[in-house]
């Protein structure tokens, strides 16, 4: 409507984690003087989105509320406009990258690809970072869990066999090597067996 072509887009970000939302906002600001709204509340989402009339809606792929936004996109002539982040049909590569990074974008108004590309590039980069952090966190958590199980298994061995902590660990390690398993797995089966027997 207001046609002086600026780089400014109205962008809605659906994200309830405040820090994460701010960090996405920051990275998008670098791509142009966009008007950016952050929606944290998932209920009533489609109403808020239709009131703000954004050009682009960015949402985490894992957010179940995607289905509500999708309906908005469907409501107005679904044939003319891409449904989800299918900004440009030929750019399947970028769409794939977006999905892998965990971001999904809805283009609410028919926009030129070159106007959206920088925004999507920034969003994809930011989401990739979150994705990495999430994976790292999970790995750390798992390592912690495994450490706990190994400690319990060591404790059990020390008590039952009357051996030292070092000997207990050596025994676990040797069993693991003999059976071609991980120490954590051997420890876990020992703990399970002990729970069953007690």
């Amino acid at each position: 409507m207001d046609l002086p072509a600026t780089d400014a887009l109205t962008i809605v970000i659906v994200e309830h984690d405040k820090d994460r939302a701010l960090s996405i906002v920051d990275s998008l600001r670098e791509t142009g003087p966009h008007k950016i709204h952050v929606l944290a509340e998932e209920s009533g989402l489609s109403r808020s989105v239709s009131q703000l009339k954004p050009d682009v809606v960015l949402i985490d792929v894992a957010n179940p509320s995607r289905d509500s936004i999708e309906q908005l996109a469907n409501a107005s002539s679904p044939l003319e406009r891409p449904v989800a982040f299918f900004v440009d049909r030929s750019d399947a590569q970028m769409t794939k990258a977006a999905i892998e990074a965990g971001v999904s974008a809805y283009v609410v108004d028919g926009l030129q690809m070159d106007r959206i590309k920088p925004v999507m590039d920034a969003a994809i980069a930011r989401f990739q970072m979150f994705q990495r952090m999430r994976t790292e966190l999970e790995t750390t958590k798992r390592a912690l869990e495994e450490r706990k199980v190994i400690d319990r298994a060591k404790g059990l061995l020390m008590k039952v066999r009357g051996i030292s902590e070092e000997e207990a660990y050596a025994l676990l390690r040797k069993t693991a090597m003999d059976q071609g398993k991980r120490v954590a797995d051997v420890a876990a089966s020992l703990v399970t067996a002990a729970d069953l027997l007690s």
Partner: protein
Amino acid sequence: MSGQQIKAGYMPLIDAAPLIVAHELGFAEEEGIALELEAAPSWSTLRDLLAFGQIQAAHMLSPVPVASSLGLLAGLPRLDALMVTSANGNVFGVSKEMSERLEADGFAYPFHDAEKAGLAIASLPRPLRIGVPFDLSMHSELITLWLSNFGMVKGEDFHIMAVPPPMMARAIERRELDAFCVGEPWGSITVERAMGALILPGAAIWSCAPEKVLAAREDWIAENPTAVSALMRAVWRACVWLAVPGNKTMAAELLSSETYLGLGSEIIDRALSGRFIVNSNGDLRRFDGFMLFAGDGICFPWQSQGRWIAERLVKRFNLSADVRPEDAQKVFRSDLYREYLMPIGAEMPLSSAKVEGALDAPTEVPTVSGSMILGRNCFFNGEIFDPGQ
């Protein structure tokens, strides 16, 4: 285990059971494939994962592949329905406030009578805000078909809004919705939380509506015949296993695990056995055929079903005359079903289309090798859909 790895996605619903059973009970392994299951947070995400090749197969709403063929999923490759994995399984319910109004008018929750329930819903203040999980769904089609019979116009007398199933109860609690249509167990959960009451099972609107399908990308299907046939056989055998009454308890246990639905097996068992607590008074109702997995011609991807869905979508989205429903029906791959499942004894009807809505009672029909029973197939209003017409 040596076969091809197939990643398959599903939504955590009871009717995801065929994929879960195919994996857990070893049907997939016996067919020589390794199924890797992945739960998706939303139907849009599941569709996108499939479309962009992150997964190869999915538990999908039956209208989605049809929509892909009609061009409603712009920019996405065509998705096909390899077989129907369940029929029915949805409930229609209302918020606490609406149920109190209905009760004041003497509504007794018959839970099988689409006529009585429809008149009751038509008596409520308008417009009604009705939640469904996804816009391209059997839920949307059945509600629209049902309510329009009572003079209610979509967009005027009722609005259909997409709300993710796990958020349905909360949306009702926050008074964002007056009614809902959702797959189990989410309807029962709304009743459990004393936020609403169940009015009608979807099966009372159409007694054998194709609800979920096994979907895959058309190009992947063409390039991987061995994997596709193994996958179809494994899932079909899971469907047959699920249809055995004695297996329901075990199925409920399997689904209830933290890996899949993470919900009490009792609430899952209600849908599998067709017993419901319909309101906060604890009224119990039975409904046979609430959710069907196999037998009665359920698994066969009938072209007439694809056609019915296609015509509904064409009308709903006001698609132009050059979009042909008779082409869209071909995404229901009865050709592959015949080719891959015939050798393991699945019943093959002579024709791949049937007249929908025309069977008052289970009826024997001829097949390639003898005969089979088709289940009752009725619309609540006596509508008959003949794809040949």
